[in-house]
């Protein structure tokens, strides 16, 4: 079966695009799929460090496009997962080094041999974003339950519809169940109500995400992490499985629950 090409984008920066790509790639590749992930953030590459592959880069995507190397030479195999590859972004070039048709050509060559191609989009809605969505079969929009992130997600969803890349599916990242419970954070329902798109995952705020990125081993490897579990669930949904959404209400320490009962928080 030819690959599913999935782009992860957000509009706003810093909401977790790269983290999501790395974790979905790890979860899919741990589960028997052949996966290539592409860092589309030319000039500001980061997917390599999140995956812990920064020391293995020889060639990058611009080298492939400009013919300095073959596609296979720019594909870095993961340290742990033999079916996971990264095509890194160029660090010393800008978004104009790549065009949407370059992306289409490059991904066409990958489709036959892999199950999933995941593309990490840069923030914004300009050239880099256009490159990232050019070849996508499916686009996942990731947001945080915050006004600026939701607003930008809405804008991106509108553009995707106009470009006939929709309907987008939504990942709500960094949801803090305690804040939601105290009505100090938009709930997943609120966000869905505002954006009116299909939900594909809710990822709770989890300090393990930072710890694992420090180590260059995405949190999806961590069987105990809630965020890791959420990403693994999204990966299964991408494969067409029906997986119920995590119950995040059980989160919060005993002390927090006591405080809530006392009406202090």
């Amino acid at each position, binding site marked *: 079966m030819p690959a599913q090409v999935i782009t992860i984008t957000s509009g706003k920066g810093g909401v977790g695009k790269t983290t999501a790509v790395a974790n979905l790639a790890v979860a899919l590749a741990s589960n028997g799929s052949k996966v290539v992930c592409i860092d589309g953030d030319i000039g500001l590459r980061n997917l390599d460090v999140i995956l812990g592959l920064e020391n293995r880069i020889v060639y990058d995507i611009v080298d492939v496009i400009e013919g300095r190397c073959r596609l296979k030479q720019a594909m870095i195999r993961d340290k742990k997962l033999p079916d996971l590859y990264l095509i890194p972004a160029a660090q010393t070039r800008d978004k104009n080094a790549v065009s949407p048709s370059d992306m289409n050509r490059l991904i066409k060559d990958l489709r036959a041999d892999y199950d999933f191609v995941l593309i990490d989009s840069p923030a914004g809605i300009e050239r880099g974003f256009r490159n990232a969505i050019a070849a996508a079969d499916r686009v996942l929009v990731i947001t945080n339950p*915050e*006004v600026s992130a*939701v*607003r930008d997600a*809405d*804008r991106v969803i*509108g553009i995707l519809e*106009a470009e006939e890349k929709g309907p987008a599916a939504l990942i709500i990242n960094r949801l803090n169940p305690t804040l*939601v419970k*105290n*009505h*100090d*954070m*938009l*709930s997943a329902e*609120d966000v869905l*109500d*505002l954006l009116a798109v299909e939900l594909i995952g809710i990822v709770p705020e989890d300090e393990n995400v930072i710890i694992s990125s420090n180590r260059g081993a995405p949190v999806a490897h961590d069987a105990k992490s809630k965020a890791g579990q959420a990403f693994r669930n999204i990966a299964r949904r991408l494969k067409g499985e029906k997986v119920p959404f995590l119950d995040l209400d059980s989160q919060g320490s005993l002390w927090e629950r006591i405080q809530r009962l006392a*009406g*202090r928080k």
Partner: protein
Amino acid sequence: MSFFERLFGKKNSADSAKERLQLVLIHDRTDLTPAELDSLKDDLIVAISRHVEIDTQSMQIGVEHDGRSQRLVADIPLKSAPRRRTRKTK
């Protein structure tokens, strides 16, 4: 939100966020879908009809673009009161 804020009835921040976003997004969405526009039109009809009788058949509503800003423009004809002089033509 603290206990005191709740005690004095200050609106919780999630509700403020949602309400503010709802308004912002209406403006951000340059292309209101026809379905959304229709439901907005229905709401307007209900609200305005509470005060004055309108001609719902020829009422029009749309979004106009002016450079980077958009505006919602509604043309709502009022139903004229029964004419005092019905003039017979022919």
